[in-house]
């Protein structure tokens, strides 16, 4: 197992260098100059432009800039935002817990509902449950996020007033947020009702963000289960007289999980990269909107640093998924 983890870790190195280079080049390939964008209609004189270019280091050759950036990254310095003038590192970690909290909740929602839905559909192949569940999954998968979110807000927050419209917690609550995870900080604050308020604020964004992964997981589970249910060892188990629950739940599901875990891993990667639409609509202070704003403002340090950090997170998730394969299927870790 150790060799397996080490070999996976080794692939980190070229990926990391590649991502550093790509994230650095990507923003510079876009047309548009950060200084001119910053000056807007007001404009900037050639002398002032030269001054600012020198101040930000953009007057030097690109390879020099890259080398300095890489040196900084290796020392843990991702640079300072061109717009807010604050370290990229600080900005990222002020926002990332919100994205992570929402992603985890959305993933739990998707897995808790998606796995059973897929199993039920597979077991009832061709019957009413199968058709109903899979059609619903297809609708969920095709739903435009923006429309879905506004619909939920209008119905549940506007008309029924069951949930708050947006934000992470009721504004009446004010307490330190040492972890950045509202569910944890609200409990730690000891303020009555704070945790419940945080949960209520999480409901709609979780549903919206979890809808597509839920549909994907349900469909993937169904097809993986169908494949496994046709295997010889399942027939053997049946002929041994094992209960259907035991066959489906233990023999079939465990083997069907490998492709499902792949899908879950990929979905987590996507969620961590920031759910721009969900975060914007629900005023969720996460990294998705931060990155998009930075691209529009040509905030080079934030875009390159943010991309790098997100890529590292996704790499960590992929590593975890790879290790989970090993746990579920011993053949993989022995390879």
């Amino acid at each position: 197992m150790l060799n397996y983890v080490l070999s996976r870790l080794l692939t980190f190195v070229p990926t990391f260098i590649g991502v550093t280079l790509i994230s650095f080049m990507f923003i510079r390939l876009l047309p548009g100059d950060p200084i001119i964008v910053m000056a807007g209609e007001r404009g900037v004189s050639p002398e002032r432009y030269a001054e600012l270019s020198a101040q930000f280091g953009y007057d030097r050759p690109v390879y020099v800039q890259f080398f300095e950036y890489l040196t900084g990254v290796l020392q843990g310095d991702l640079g300072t935002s061109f717009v807010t003038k604050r370290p990229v590192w600080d900005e990222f970690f002020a926002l990332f817990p919100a994205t992570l909290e929402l992603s985890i909740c959305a993933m739990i929602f998707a897995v808790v509902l998606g796995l059973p839905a897929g199993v039920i559909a597979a077991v009832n192949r061709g019957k009413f449950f199968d058709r109903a569940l899979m059609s619903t999954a297809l609708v969920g998968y095709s739903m435009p996020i923006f429309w879905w979110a506004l619909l939920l807000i209008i119905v549940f927050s506007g008309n029924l007033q069951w949930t708050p419209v947006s934000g992470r917690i009721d504004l009446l609550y004010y307490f330190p947020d040492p972890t950045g995870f509202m569910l944890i900080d609200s409990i730690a604050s000891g303020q009555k009702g704070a945790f419940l308020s945080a949960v209520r604020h999480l409901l709609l964004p979780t549903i919206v963000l979890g809808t597509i992964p839920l549909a994907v997981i349900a469909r993937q589970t169904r097809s993986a289960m169908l494949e496994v249910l046709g295997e010889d060892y399942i027939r053997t188990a049946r002929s041994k007289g094992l209960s259907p629950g035991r066959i489906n739940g233990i023999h079939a599901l465990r083997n069907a999980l490998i492709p499902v875990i792949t899908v879950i891993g990929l979905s987590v990667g996507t969620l961590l990269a920031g759910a721009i639409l969900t975060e914007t609509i629900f005023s969720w202070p996460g990294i998705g909107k931060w990155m998009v704003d930075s691209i529009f403002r040509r905030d080079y340090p934030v875009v390159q640093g943010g991309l790098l950090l997100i890529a590292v997170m996704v790499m960590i998730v992929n590593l975890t998924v790879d290790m989970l394969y090993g746990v579920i299927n011993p053949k993989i870790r022995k390879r």
Partner: protein
Amino acid sequence: MSFRLSLFAGVACAALGASVASAQSLVYCSEGSPEGFDPALYTAGTTFDASSHPIYNRLTEFKVGTTEVLPGLAESWTVSEDGKTVTFNLRKGVKFHSNANFTPTRDFNADDVIFSFDRQGNPDNPYNEVSGGTWEYFAGMSMPELVSSIEKVDDYTVKFNLTRPEAPFIANMAMDFASIVSKEYADAMMEAGTPEMLNQAPIGTGPFAFQAYQKDAVIRYLRNDAYWGDAAKVQSLIFAITPDASVRYQKVQAGECHVMAYPNPADVQAMKDAEDVVVMEQEGLNVGYLAYNTKVAPYDNPKVRKALNMAIDKQAIIDVVFQGSGQIAKNPIPPTMWSYNEAVEDDAYDPEAAKKMLADEGVSDLNLKIWAMPVQRPYNPNARRMAELMQEDFSKIGVNVEIVSYEWGEYLDRSKAEDRDGAVLLGWTGDNGDPDNFLAVLLGCDGVGASNRAQWCNEEFDEAINAAKVLPTQAERTPLYEKAQVIFKEQAPWATIAHSVVYMTMRPEVDGYVVHPLGGHIFNQVGLSQ
């Protein structure tokens, strides 16, 4: 220590014990996050809403709801006869806020004024490069060239020596970049090795003291009970950052916010019809225009430009592009600004006459490029659509239009070129309520090849605005600006399109809100009725 922790530690005010905000909290659904809290470092209105308006004061202040300049931290001022020395007499007994890391030991005085400007203009000032200071507004308002020195006469008298007489200078001192920060706080933070706290945990003299900021989510302020002016009417002010306009409206309806800015134009009518919200409106201090390149034939001929202007159906643009939330512009300055010339008559929409005029000038088979901005602006919510409407209008007089666009930075840069091919859609939002801020910047000879997108240099016009700039009173300056607007209309370097209308949506219990023509959202005197 993470930024969040350090920020929290830095601002954990005495009021933290009362950790649940009181019922007397005014919640404003703002449209975006501030870049920081030191207004001199930034240029965005969203940042000024969150920083300079609640937290700081300036030597002079705009009267909310007007562009009139009132005394602020300066009780009075005198201008020397040659117009080159301005002396401010400072207000006594003004207290700075305090926070967990700082308690002021003295009142506001001349040192704070000098520090607030010196850090922006003097490269040797230790704060000049703190927080990556680029001081865009200070440079943009030509302060480095205009102010030769600032002298402390005594603790409560400061003298600004100027290189030339400049009438708008007093109004410039009311702008956000001129907010007065505490030198004592700056020194303390420099000594503590955390100079960036000046920007992150701001200390000012304003009606609200900064309490905390959770990035992209919430900003909290508490009433400054020691405020020198009229105290704020609510105990706390909260900005709930809500980027989506539809969601902002839902929050107002659900009672999660009291006030919101920038409604969707398409929603305004429904808001006006709704019983549980109030909609306020006012013309914005801006203008959207189409600038011809007056250096390139046949657009160097005023009659050709005039003919094109007559072919544009501006009402259709207001209806379709602004969805009603705009008004037709006839002058290059907005109607809320002093010296606006009501007597000027707009070019009538008359395609037939326009066609004839072009023929009379010997112009036929004209091809024109119209540049459409890639971004949304208050003065032009949809430039592409506007360009398409113009394309249709111009086709009726036989002018063939090609619409071009570039990425925003490229657009701004390329549109400055003196040999530019085509007419540019652009606009301007006023900074200080002074006509000079529109007419000189956008149409003066100095701006050719830069912010004067029409590349238009008219001697008579330039003389008028330059003469007006150095006269001391509005009464003396007004006739010159009125004359400049007449020349502008005759010469038609632009087609003036529209001034936007600014809407504010709020709950009925909000009391005393005034829409500010300079675009800021100011809550200093806003209360909540029971």
